[in-house]
């Protein structure tokens, strides 16, 4: 082989020793981190956040909050098991507030009884009633609409105008959608159940399933891509994905995907387009409730609403806040006014319906 026997022998020894030393050193670093964990600050100086939203989306606005208020925000981001963590930690939980990316998680927390009711004139003034819990348990911060992205080339205007149209046999083999189990679709299906009843909803979902061009897959962006590629003519997506594609300088091919489709806000003639919210809530066990409420109030205010919504091309919940020009360019639309807590109560049924008709196969 490459090295003479003796040298090789020394080399192995060295690699071994070097590794041992490194690992021992690292162990000390770890121990120090555990022992010297920074002490918790008193109320008013910091607030602890459990977040279902990715850090890179929320960090800029949290930094502004700290700048303005002097309150430091500590974050743990996780998508699975946060509720179990809150419950297990119980009264000793260090967490003060949660941020979620949809109504479903908020409803689960209401059901689990871990949220604290909040009475705040500021929040009531900033957030329309249908985007907050009637008892003040949670507050919507931004909304996004679940829309249809239809091919500019292959779909004539007026051909698809409602969610119900998606079950129309004329669209056979022309629709793309992400997994029926994704919470955005579960929420959409739940809203159909809430409006039309389970039997009609199931018939509709079967019709939609029969029209799919391919097995449900990818994220919402991937549906616009599929329309661009000619795999299908109609994709179903949340609005903000359009904004992200239209402005993607780093991946310019995504601008082409967005340019291949028109946004259709469904059901403008009747109940309005299904919207979901990202929201926030204060936890029952919080020992820094004042700071937590201050944070949510800040997020509902003019300044944060503009930035926070823009960051992800969402709609601010506060009426009158200026929209991102791109979001504005999609036009005004009528949103479904049914309270989201009610929609959300049909989630389990929606999930079982997806199983029952084998939507994902």
């Amino acid at each position, binding site marked *: *082989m*490459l090295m003479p026997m003796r040298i090789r*022998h020394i*080399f*192995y*020894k060295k690699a071994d020793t*070097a*590794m041992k030393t*490194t*690992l021992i050193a*690292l*162990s000390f*670093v*770890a121990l120090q*981190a*555990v022992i010297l*964990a920074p002490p918790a600050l008193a109320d008013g100086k910091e607030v*602890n956040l459990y977040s279902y939203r*990715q*850090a890179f989306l929320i960090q800029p606005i949290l930094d502004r909050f700290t700048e303005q208020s002097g309150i430091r925000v500590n*974050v*743990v*981001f*996780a*998508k*699975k*098991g*946060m509720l*179990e*963590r809150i419950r*297990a*930690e*119980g*009264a*000793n*939980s*260090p967490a003060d507030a949660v941020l979620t990316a949809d109504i479903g998680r908020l409803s689960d927390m209401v*059901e689990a009884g871990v949220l604290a009711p909040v009475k705040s004139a500021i929040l009531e003034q900033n957030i329309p009633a249908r985007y907050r819990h009637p008892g003040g348990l949670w507050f919507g911060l931004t909304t996004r609409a679940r829309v249809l992205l239809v091919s500019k080339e292959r779909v004539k205007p007026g051909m698809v105008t409602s969610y119900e149209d998606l079950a129309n046999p004329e669209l056979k083999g022309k629709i793309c959608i992400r*997994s029926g*189990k994704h*919470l955005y679709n*579960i929420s959409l299906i739940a809203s159909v159940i809430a409006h039309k009843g389970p039997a009609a909803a199931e018939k509709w979902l079967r019709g939609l399933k029969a029209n799919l061009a391919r*097995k449900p897959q*990818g*994220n919402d*962006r*991937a549906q616009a*891509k599929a329309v661009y*590629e*000619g*795999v299908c003519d109609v994709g179903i997506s949340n609005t903000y994905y359009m904004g992200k594609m239209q402005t993607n300088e*780093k*991946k310019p091919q995504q601008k082409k995907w967005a340019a291949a489709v028109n946004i259709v806000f469904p059901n403008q003639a009747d109940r309005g387009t299904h919207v979901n919210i990202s929201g926030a809530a204060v936890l029952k066990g919080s020992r820094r409730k004042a700071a937590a409420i201050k944070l949510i109030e800040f997020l509902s205010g003019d300044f944060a609403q503009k930035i926070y919504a823009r960051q992800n091309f969402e709609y601010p919940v506060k009426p009158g806040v200026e929209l991102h020009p791109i979001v504005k360019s999609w036009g005004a639309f009528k949103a479904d006014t049914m309270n989201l807590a009610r929609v959300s109560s049909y989630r*389990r049924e929606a999930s*079982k319906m997806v*199983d*029952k008709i*084998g939507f*994902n*196969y």
Partner: protein
Amino acid sequence: MRQPVGLFSSYTWARWRPDGWSLGVFAIAAFTAAPILAVVVLALTSSPDIWAHLAATVLPHYIHSTLVLMTGVGVGAFIIGTGTAWLTSAYTFPGKAVFEWALLLPMAVPAYIIAYVYTDLLDYAGPVQSVLREVMGYRNARDYSFPEIRSLGGATAMMTLVLYPYVYLLARSAFLDQSNAVLEAGRVLGCGPWRNFFTIALPMARPAIVVGVSLVMMEVLNDFGTVDFFAVQTFTAGIYDVWLNMNNPAGAAQLATAMMVFVLLLLAAERIGRKNKRFDNVRRSQPRSKTRLTGVRGIIVFAACLAPVALGFGVPVWVLGKYALRFYETSLNLSLLTSALNSLMLSGIAAFAAVALGLFMAYGVRLNGGRAIKSAARLASIGYAVPGAVLAVGVLLPLARFDNAIDAAAREYLGFSTGLLMSGTIFAVLYGFLARFMALSFGSAESGLARITPSMEGAARTLGASRWSVLRRIHIPLLRGSLLTAVLLVFVDGMKELPMTMLLRPFNFETLATFVHQYASDEMLEESSLAALGIVVAGIAPVIALSLSISGSRRQ
């Protein structure tokens, strides 16, 4: 000496007397099995019945796709893993010195990342199909058909490419331990190289290969990232669906428990299959002789070893590197460095702790072969088969209960609150790692010990050596290769670990994997490709150092 020398007689329940080792094994087993038991306890809490609905709808699909995936990846990893392990341990050929360690490299690539990379290459907009359209003059996707990468077959291929090194590593260390004399006896009796491999080398390496293949299958079972990305509905996908979409954690725990029982039965079946067989070797007295392969055969073997490395490591690193050059500023900041240090620290500590505890348990089981102690050790190493986020819940439940009990006691008797002592600290994350990775360290140590002949320690004990000193002076030196293998496995797996870290971590704590996840979870891997590359690169150095050190340990 107080203990009888009959070390390997089968103790029955009636004859079992507690001694230090057994109690130690039980203590460690209880510690690592607590999260698993917590999942089982959660499964027993009353909940809306989920089985009738699942059985009538999606359960057959879940079971079918899971079994197909497990079998496919298991067979694929077995063929690539043992094949390359045999080639690099029995032959010399061009590039062998590099392949010895390079064949391990794909292990450093997380499965969901390789899935992402190949989707990018093979889907409609990727270079492969673009060239195809260019050449054939197709206009859009409706003009032709191309195999769908987002499928069961695609998932099988991706997982095989990054998981075969588990088999390779364990099989190779078994092959290198095999006595020359036995193989030469085969030769003398007229076995050709193929027959020698199939009738002697392969059966003798069985315990190690079984550990490798079962680790691979457990990885397949617990994977969520890849199957979710490829829209393959496996059992684990079902567990998450019941938990999160139907808000039924107890139902999810029931599914997870069913999966653990399945794995335990599978492992038990394999053990029954090899009952009463012994795998210990006559220690070789001379270095292993190797056949030199040249010419066409050399080239074929070279290509056979190059292919898995190129596909499982070369391609993903090349693609990630390309992304990283374009998107580096998203991830190139101080927090990346902190994340990298956190990753190294967690994986490093977990590796040594898991191997120390795993060795202790394996030796305890060898000393006292009673059924109770064996079962305890098996249970403690089943965490690897549980979907990560479910096991993470299993960790936080007992930990929070313990913390809250201490707090309540302190309030009651001392008049102050301790708060949560361990929940939400790095200790919680490390605990999760141990619960998850014990299968790796215990499996390696146990299969290594099986290759050491009992007569060796019988002799030592007769000469008056204590059990500690047998472990220290005989087993650990002989097991050096196996133990380093275990350190390597746990370290590299720790670098990739995501769901445990996500849920159990303290505030403001990122590792490379969690950093990558916040982008990758929304199919924006490009933005965090530098960090993804970091996971892979950080895995390379220990892979090389350890594999050199493992080969070194054979040459002494």
